[in-house]
């Protein structure tokens, strides 16, 4: 299996629901707590597995705003795993999820430097590196209703801009939408083979204009002829 996410940039409105759903699930989950620093003070920060970046392309008035959620891409050639000196970072053979074993992690930050996607988050309180687990503690939990066995970010997304599934299965939803919409990897040139795919903003929808004939243009109200319509 090759589990991962598809993120539809055509639908993402940048609401951060996914980022906060992730935070709330995971702070009491297998990676918890996700520490917050100065939660009520200056420059608050904390451990988040999923962050939304906001960009603009083009110039006013033809500019376009793009909201770009980023979390671990669960790369097939994961640099974070390669560089880990303790074996704490690993990619699961069973499903391809990249994880960190907190018992073995010494918080050296090598993986964070190696990751080009900024997906690694050091929990300074624990001295342990943390990251998106694709909610490994949800997706296999048979005590959850079947429709809830998916990552918190996918469950909550109000625009359905996030999909989860197995890219090895050509009939999975992620494979289908990715094929249909020409899913893209982020920074393919780096060669890490990220599993997560992004769907580009669609081309503008073009709608036909109602045909008009200039000579019939109504110049004055008096030109009109009443139509008989029964109330």
């Amino acid at each position, binding site marked *: *299996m090759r589990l991962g996410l598809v993120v539809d940039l*055509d639908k993402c*409105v940048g*609401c*951060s*629901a996914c980022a*906060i*759903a992730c935070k*709330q699930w995971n*702070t*009491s989950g*297998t990676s*918890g707590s996700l*520490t*917050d620093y100065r*939660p*009520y*003070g*200056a*420059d*608050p920060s*904390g451990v988040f597995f999923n962050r939304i970046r*906001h960009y603009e392309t083009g*110039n*006013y008035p033809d500019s376009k*705003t793009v909201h770009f959620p980023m979390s671990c891409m669960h790369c097939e050639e994961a640099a974070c795993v390669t560089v880990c000196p303790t074996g704490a970072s*690993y990619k699961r053979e069973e*499903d391809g999820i990249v994880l960190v*074993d907190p018992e*073995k992690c010494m918080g050296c930050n090598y993986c964070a430097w190696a990751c080009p996607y900024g997906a690694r988050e050091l929990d300074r*309180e624990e001295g342990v590196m943390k990251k998106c*687990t694709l909610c490994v*503690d949800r997706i*296999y*939990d*048979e005590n*959850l209703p079947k429709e809830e066995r998916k990552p*918190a970010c996918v*469950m909550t997304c*109000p625009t*359905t801009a996030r999909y*989860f*599934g197995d890219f090895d*299965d050509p009939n*999975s*939803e*992620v494979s289908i939408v990715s094929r249909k919409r020409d899913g893209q990897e982020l920074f393919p040139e780096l060669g890490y083979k990220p599993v997560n795919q992004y769907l580009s903003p669609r081309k503008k*929808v073009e*709608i*036909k*204009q*109602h045909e*008009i004939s200039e000579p019939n243009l*109504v110049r004055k*109200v008096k030109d*009109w002829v*009443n139509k*008989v*319509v029964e*109330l």
Partner: protein
Amino acid sequence: MAEKQDKISFKKNAFIDNANKMPEFENHQQQTQKNTTCYMCACRCGIKVTLENNKIRYIQGEPTHPVNKGVLCAKGNAGIMKQISPARLRQPMMRKPGSERGTSEFVPISWDEALDMLTERLQKIRETDPKKLAFFTGRDQMQALTGLWAQQFGTINWAAHGGFCSVNMAAAGLYTTGFSFWEFGDPDWERTKYFMLWGVAEDHASNPMKMGINKLKERGGKFVAINPVRTGYQAVADEWVPIKPGTDAMLALSLIHVLLKNELFDWEFLVRYTNAHYLVVNTPRTKGDGLFYRNSNGTPQSWDLEKECLVNATDPKIKPALLGEYKAPDGTQLKTAFTIMTERYMSDEYTPENASKICGVPADQIKKIALELAHVAFKESIEIETEWTDWTGRKHDKFIGRPVSMHAMRGISAHSNGFQACRAIHFLQVLLGSVDSPGGHLAKPPYPRHVAPPIKPGKNVVPGKPLESWPLGFPTEPEDLAIDDEGNPLRIDKAYSWEAPIANHGLMHMAITNAVAGDPYEIDTMIFFMANMAWNSTMNTTKMRENLCAKNEDGEYKIPFLVVCDAFDSETVGYADLVIPDTTYLERYDTISILDRPISEPHAVCDSIRAPILEPDRDVRPWQSVLVELAGRLKFPEFTSDNGERKFKDYKDFIINYEKVPGVGFLAGWRGENGENSLKGKPNPKQWDKYIENKCFFEYKLADNHKYFRGANKDYLEFAKKSGFNSSSDPIIIELYSEKLQKFKLAGMGLYDGPQPKKERDQFRLSRFFDPIPEYYIPLEHRCTFSQAFPFYAITQRPMFMYHSWDSQNAWLRQLQAHNYMHMNKAKGEELGIKDLSWVWVESNTGKIKVQVKLMEGCQSDTIWTWNAIGKQKGKWGLSEDANESTKGFLMNHLINEHLPCADTGSPVTNSDPITGQAAWYDLKVNIYPAADDEQFGVYPNFEASTKLPGRPETKDILRYNTKKPVRLSRSLIDILTKGGFEK
């Protein structure tokens, strides 16, 4: 959601194998799940809350809930952090004896003391002059109760926050189509093909809007966003129209111009469902001009094309002329309403070329959008095969839909021309025939209601007695105004006076100013519930904070007693004489009632409740329980039995047993003694239990033949009457032409047989702005602001992840944004020598602020904007004094005056829509220039740090929230040894 999940398939065996190998991460045995309704904003989504060790493990969207269908936004997902917020109030408090108001110095008191103090004070007011109590509520979701309470108390001075929120949106709809946007109606997301979003940044409605955009996009429909700023929803729009703020009416009417010029409108729809064919008296500058021509029974008349004579406009089977000028038998000159419309909108004033100069939208783009709308409405119309009967008895075998839909909110309504702008948008919908038609803009029950809803504002204040009617209502003629014989306002906020005649939601933003000025009179006690009137919910914040502390010469406060009820330590709490601490939304019972702001869906009548998830760990009580308690103590008639005993034990008992009229109560579900009735029925003692069993909501799905054209749908109209939504099953006729407005206009012109304003200013405002058909006019502040001195429009928008001032106390949400910037167009900034992230001064007629600027592309070049209410007073909301919210965050409010700058006639006039009193927040004009080199840090103005409230816990620098010790997943040593790093 379920549908989507079904499509996901895994290689099943591999998946099960993996599951077997996993540790048990969650101990479900020690977890419980409860449903309730979210209150992180006004969307009111259903939530399922998982508890573990008496803490919240997880809050998720309830998949079966009609509003959110399982999804949840950032705010809803951050409920845990609201629940543990250090800003939560902990006990009743009174201002420390000897301390000054506004210093946040309090001493804790018991509930008995607090309630006795309040009861004694209120009792005296009620027995002497009930209007001396002004009771204003903020973003409350129980106006049905607070309004009833005020009415029973007998005060005229009650309103909720609608007047400073979006009353223009609500009023324009209710005076035109009988419903409006958001809580009143939604696009037909299942079918619409062309969606125009007007003036909605990122908020109302939250999840339904996002879910709808998804559906539209899946269908390949087009999304056009009209907004000066390209963030949030606009980001994913197919076409962004960066309009100049306050000019939307011009754009809508110019679209109408193009449609009319090309004869592209739904002729049948206009004849059958609107008053466009009614005959209007055409006798300029005389009494009666512009009113409908009526027969001796008072019935409006139309011209029948076949009979060639006047007929009753409301009779079935007539064949009325939509256009033309006619003469009545008595010689009166008449014109159809539609003729008046076409004459105006086809004039050169509304050509795309002229509109372009005003809106900043290219003329070609206006033409293109108009013709696209027409194409979708008329060439891509849809049909739903269902038999239905219209009000005349005519049978139809299908509903014909015009799949064009629109949604509008505060960007349109928070201007002083917003009422007419909202009406213009409705006009556009009506011309296209897309009102309550498949694919169009659908009403949500109990809407549509008759135009306007038949409730008049109360005005007779009698000591010891309830007000004769609800304090708020829908005036339809000058006789309905709340004014005295001299024409002076009866209400403290001057709602329903000549200054704001159709102020359906009151003018909360004027209450403090007027009370302090004693204009129209002095009050005794002011109660604010959940309204941050000393900060972001007020105009002219600095002055308003001074006002709250203003004293008479004798040293008494001008507002003698100020009661603040809130769950959190807002800036306003600091000004209270008495603080009533509310619970959080997860700690109480609540009703989201059809009598209030309903949560219905277009094709389902819905309401919901909140049920407590957690016991409060503080000495706090839900405000609704306190209100019921006070109502009992004060012996309000509706709350007192014939024997003088209290009628209701508590809030829950009140909700079960109170009936507005027999069979109709706050909750519509599981009525009847055994819960066997829906919508109407006897009280059910087990009603709360039934709601809790059913995930805290009630949903009554409409029959297929009830779903569309409900204003003219016989079976629906009868259903609506039977269900208590409407008092009659008469058709709900869309009032394109508003005779109601014309009556006010005539009063302003001195041509009305009835009350007329005496002040020249009021005469001008009525005769100028009360147009029976919408027009574009320059917003009032712009008319009296020297545009070269203040060349920029300045607006405030709401981010998706924060609800007004509420969420800076939220440790997770404030990490998304702890302070706001002033955003402006990049090229424009560079032209003015303003650098990205530099500090600038922004100046208006009223004041100036120093703020940090951020340049961006997606901003209309004459507009600057910021996020609402992220800036905070030092030390408030549980934040430390060095929190970014107070060192860098700011409010635009300091620049906005509650009065118009050009009040040249002695008495100041409100900075609001002259028709509805809607606060004109977005009319602001400003100048912006770089701050000096030595001013390059720190926001201005600054306020004293607030004293810490008694009992507030110390906050720590590290927060590690969880509900249990985590179950870790380990990597085996074998795995490391065999694979090392990533080497297969």
